[in-house]
């Protein structure tokens, strides 16, 4: 958890400063949530890769493919198509998440500059 302590006895905290601090907190929370989501999306992608590979190795015509809570008997070609579609979705999702992460990191760096400039040692914006 990041700590934000403001105000030695000299520097006054304005509403603008408070809003910056709040914004930094929000971005930081979103950043941590994003890390979790990215991890999950990467795992999902890996699983789909493995599934695709297994599919190539198997010589069964009908594959049990999980839909919802059940495993439906689905012809191999259809399974292949489905897996491709799912992979595309996850990859696009992953890209979107990574982009958001980059944007958030740069916004946080900006805010850090502004806040450290005003408060210096009186504020701590690092992870502990």
């Amino acid at each position, binding site marked *: 958890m990041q700590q*934000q302590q*403001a105000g030695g006895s000299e520097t006054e905290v*304005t*509403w603008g400063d408070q809003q910056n*601090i709040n914004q930094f907190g929000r971005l930081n929370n979103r950043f941590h949530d994003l890390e979790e989501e990215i991890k999950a999306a990467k795992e999902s992608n890996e699983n789909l890769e493995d599934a695709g590979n297994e599919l190539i190795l198997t010589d069964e015509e009908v594959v049990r493919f999980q839909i919802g*809570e059940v*495993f*439906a008997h689905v012809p191999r070609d259809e399974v292949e198509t489905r897996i491709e579609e799912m992979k595309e979705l996850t990859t696009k999702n992953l890209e979107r998440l990574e982009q958001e992460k980059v944007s958030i990191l740069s916004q946080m760096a900006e805010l850090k500059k502004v806040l450290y400039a005003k408060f210096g040692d009186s504020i701590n914006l690092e992870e502990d």
Partner: protein
Amino acid sequence: MASSSTATERRGIPGAQFVEDVETYLTQSGLDVNSALSFLQERLQQYRVVEMKLLAQQRDLQAKIPDIEKCLDVVATLQSKKGTGEALIADFEIAEGIYSRASIDESDSVCLWLGANVMLEYSCEEATALLQKNLENAKASLEVLIADLQFLRDQVTITQVTVARVYNWDVHQRRLKQATAAVKDS
């Protein structure tokens, strides 16, 4: 000097008053430093309680959404099988680690579990529409919830900063008093 704040409250969550000047804040509220600090700490506790509740609701919704999507998937699969004349064969779990095979013939309707021990039969199209609506409602609720959490965390941040400033102001005041006392004595 007046104190400014954004919303005074949001859906039952009291807004934290932003303090422009610590001294004015203390005189206006008529509290001494310790009472002010304990009031603010109490507020932080209340915020924590609400945060726990909201996080639990968020977890529930985040579990519900993939569930609804899976149901939509199944209904779509059943619909695509219509007209082919084939039955859908599926393996399902009847007990942990034990699976059984089911042959699902073509059907125009599905039964949906609505909760509270109630299950209703719907046509495939109606089922899709209902599930779609539930999914959208769940996603909208989740968005509102996330906004609530953001508001809450902002109020927590404001309160934490106020605590630090009141404390620092107090330390500053004591130092000043000691300095004047030292001057008098010397």
